[in-house]
């Protein structure tokens, strides 16, 4: 293709090369990339929405001559761009920008910690704001730049889990903006505690590209990043609620007369803040008999494993997804909450228009590998089973309910699983990694109906 090195061609190529490099470093358009983006995940583009609207109005105009389609489409466009401005303005007023973060007081977020995490890599000093007479209106502060140094390349400037490396990772980095976190000590589908987030940052997530920061960062630095993650999550969820208020409920945030809908904005901020302040940490019940695994005799260990296997196959329903041998091959194709909606859109071009990252499927964990993302301590496994894994298909265990039909003896009833019995499943799950190959299901352990 390039038989000779024509000096002219080379010069041209070098020029193009420089241009390309410049584009890479400056990003596209005028922005330098240091800005938040709006969450338009799952939202059709303006052009698509306009086309849909046009079709609906055209069909309604057929039976109703009063409808002026062009006028209505103009109204739709005006409203779309005005609402987008309203959303961006409210978010900036409430949460600031990457280099000037703010937080509504109701969130309880610590602005000093947030500032330590925000800002450019290497940190930056923000000068105090002075009035004409030199009086300080707003004091200066230091930005620590920790997030952009350690996290942004995967989790993105907006915490959208779509940093430059995200496309190449499986699973994708967490998009914080739904406020959904997987590895928690709290009730099913509740927010994590600070300690839960600390565990994830300190230890990383095994089997994923999330590294452990225990050595790279001090405890204080991790505290700053925990606060910044919560900041992204609250900002993100407030954005989703305000977007719904604007675009679905037809509300207005900023009125024509220059006032704003403080009540509506406050209600949504307080709602999101309350989700973080009202959580219930699930205290694990003691193991049956009160003895730890290490304290059990060989016979007791064997018994616990056998009960665990029975529960794994029957009452616990684990085999439904994890398969009879725990290989993660029991269920149907599945997705986490960040991909479920994508999976419903079959047309790939349509999907690419609505979501930044391609569809990624989720497999039930292969328990024989002994790699547990949320931690491999017995208490970690206990919590995954007891509370489920938020944002994924993994449900919380059904404990202490009413008697249920016995799958092994039709016509008879059995007691449902008790909470302390979860420990038997924990023992069994942790044993699977040592028993690769030979622990295939015995026929009598298989419920007739595949429960």
């Amino acid at each position, binding site marked *: 293709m*390039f038989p000779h090195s024509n000096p002219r061609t080379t010069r041209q190529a070098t020029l193009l090369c420089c241009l390309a490099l410049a584009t*890479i470093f400056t990003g596209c358009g005028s922005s330098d990339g240091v800005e938040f983006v709006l969450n338009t995940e799952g939202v059709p583009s303006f052009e698509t929405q306009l086309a849909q609207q046009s079709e609906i109005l055209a069909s309604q105009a057929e039976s109703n001559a009063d409808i002026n389609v062009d006028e209505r489409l103009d109204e739709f466009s005006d409203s779309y761009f005005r609402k987008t401005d309203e959303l961006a303005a*409210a978010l900036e007023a409430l949460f600031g920008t990457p280099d000037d973060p703010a937080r509504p007081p109701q969130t309880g977020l610590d602005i000093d910690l947030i500032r330590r995490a925000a800002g450019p890599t290497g940190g930056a000093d923000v000068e105090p704001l002075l009035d004409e007479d030199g009086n300080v209106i707003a004091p200066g502060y230091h930005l620590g730049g920790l997030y952009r140094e350690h996290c942004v390349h995967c989790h993105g400037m907006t915490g959208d889990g779509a940093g430059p490396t995200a496309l190449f990772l499986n699973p994708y980095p967490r998009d914080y903006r739904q406020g959904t976190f997987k590895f928690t000590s709290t009730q099913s589908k509740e927010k994590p505690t600070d300690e839960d987030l600390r565990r994830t940052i300190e230890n990383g997530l095994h089997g994923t590209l999330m590294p452990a920061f225990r050595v790279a960062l001090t405890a204080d630095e991790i505290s700053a990043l925990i606060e910044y993650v919560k900041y992204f999550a609250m900002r993100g969820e407030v954005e989703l609620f305000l977007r719904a208020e604007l675009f679905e409920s037809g509300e207005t945030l900023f009125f024509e007369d220059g006032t704003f809908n403080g009540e509506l904005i406050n209600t949504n901020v*307080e709602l999101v803040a309350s989700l973080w302040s009202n959580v219930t940490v699930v205290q694990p019940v003691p193991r049956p008999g009160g003895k730890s695994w290490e304290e059990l005799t060989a016979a007791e260990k064997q018994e616990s494993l056998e009960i665990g296997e029975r529960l794994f196959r029957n009452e616990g329903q684990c085999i439904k997804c994890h398969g009879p041998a725990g290989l993660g091959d029991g269920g149907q194709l599945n997705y986490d909450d960040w991909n479920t909606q994508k999976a419903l859109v079959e047309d790939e071009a349509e999907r690419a228009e609505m979501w930044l990252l391609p569809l990624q499927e989720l497999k039930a964990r292969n328990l024989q590998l002994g790699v547990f993302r949320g931690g491999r301590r017995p208490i970690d496994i206990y919590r995954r089973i007891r509370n489920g894994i938020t944002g994924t298909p993994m*449900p919380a265990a059904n404990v202490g309910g009413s008697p249920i039909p016995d799958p092994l003896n039709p016509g008879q009833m059995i007691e449902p699983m008790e909470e302390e019995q979860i420990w038997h499943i924990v023992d069994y799950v942790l044993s699977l990694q040592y028993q690769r190959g030979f622990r295939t299901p015995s026929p009598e352990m298989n419920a007739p109906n595949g*429960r």
Partner: protein
Amino acid sequence: MARNFNPQILLCLMLIVISAFGCAEDERQSAAVSDDVYNEWVVPLRQSMASAESAGGGGEVVQLDPTGWATITGRFVYDAPSAPVGVAFSTTSDPVCGAFNIRDESLMVNANGMGLANVFVYLRTRGFGDPHESYVPGQEIVLANNGCRFEPHALAIWMENKIKVTNEDPTGHNTNCTAPGDPKGSFNESIPAGAFIVKEFGRSQPRPNEVKCSIHPWMSAKVLPRENPYFATTDADGNFRIENVPAGIELEFQVLHELSGNLNADASWNNGRFKVTLQNDETHDMGVISVGPALFGR
């Protein structure tokens, strides 16, 4: 070929491709605002936040006194030459479910009469005292896992009642309900064959919650918790009927469908809403409300 290979040019090409690709990929909508928007909207809102630390407290709801009770009814009809038929799901991953013929239920139209099912109609107006005595609180409203689908597919529920999720199938299910802003109503629990769970909702929702089963990903239901009992979902023939709604006050009703969102069935409706004032003991029949496929993206 190898002799003429120029690594510089290849590098340049790669850079050009990367830069072009990078730009095309990033279609994210900036959250940065213009100077005008900043000065007119951002600054005053930021100032009010800083000055009013405890500016919260939900808005006062004006108490309304109805003069009596009335009934509102109507029928939604899908205006197309033929009824759409949902795509059949592959359900063979579970032998129990494989026995059922299960189809996508996101747009249910009765071929006999073209009635549109699963339309939510609810009263949006707030501020009424105790509802009519025909509404009994403390009941358990059943959402059944039955035949490897949820029955009913669309369910509205008064928050004074609880939801009982049962499992009538000889196979295990789990029920994963996502209720935005409502930790109480958000749950994902395993429900073995013959078992059930009872849950409550903590937030009246403007749009229905998504309910799924992880074990059988085709399963889907829409559950709408409301702070008052004045709501209905259309039946298989497209009919709805809400009895004993407050009379003598202008009421605003919201109409929703899972595919359309706000259902602007009439060009005069905005955000899927219509207003009506009912007389005491009146039965207000809205008649046939015709909706075209365009509203559902069909």
